[in-house]
């Protein structure tokens, strides 16, 4: 089970996930993220504070999202990774691919700064 909610944080948006990001729920997240990319938010922050489990299917969604963000020149950041989820990202060698922050407000601030500097 994965609950997906949004919180606008102009000019970006926070996506708040709750539950498990596994082989069943990863396609649901992928679809939501695609919709958000189409909606042209300047940047997207994914809040993983209430996600206790991320499988490789979940990592692949984030990887695809990182590629889309690069292509569309949108900001993407992750925040509040639980220790076991952080470990999965590290073992996959995926931490260098993302901006990872402790709190969503820090992630938004970093993305705003980054787009202002660009």
């Amino acid at each position, binding site marked *: 089970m994965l609950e997906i909610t949004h919180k606008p944080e102009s000019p970006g948006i926070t996506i708040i996930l709750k539950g498990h990001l596994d082989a*069943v729920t990863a396609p649901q997240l992928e679809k939501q993220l695609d919709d958000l990319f189409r909606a042209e938010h300047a940047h997207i922050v994914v809040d993983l504070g209430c996600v206790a*489990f991320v499988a*490789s*299917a979940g990592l692949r969604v984030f990887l695809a999202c*990182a*590629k889309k963000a690069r292509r569309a020149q949108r900001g993407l950041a992750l925040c509040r990774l639980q220790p*076991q989820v952080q470990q999965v990202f590290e073992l*996959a060698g995926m931490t260098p691919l993302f901006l990872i922050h402790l709190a969503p407000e820090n992630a938004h601030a970093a993305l705003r700064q980054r787009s202002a500097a660009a």
Partner: protein
Amino acid sequence: MNPTGDCKEQTLVWQRDVPNRIEDATAAAAAAGHHLRRQGVAGTAAHAAHFAIEEMLTNTIKYGHPAHPSRLSVEIVPDSVVVRIEDDGQEFDPSKSPAPPLPANPDERAPGGLGIHIVRQMISSIAYTRRDGRNHLVLTIAR
């Protein structure tokens, strides 16, 4: 304890037959993790077992095309958790699958092979045998 006082030895083996559907694989993996936590196994080991079972079972369903449900068991022994998975899918030895390259540029990343690569780093040993047309996998996770 029962009234006669003879105390049967408890064997802590948790077992499931898992149908070949992603939903069932994912649910069985989560249930195994939950079982281990309830038995007092540390969170790190319970999480590693959950992760390893999810990856191995979904991999078998996607690529091994087994005809019958996979047999999953989880056993708690003094210093480790032993996960056994048996299936009648195509022969596949995950202990021999090469580590995927992990370039820092997301555009150069191929999506495959990531799950098994992570599992192998999380667990202490992986043993594979092919017997009687079945894959037998034994994963040992330090507690």
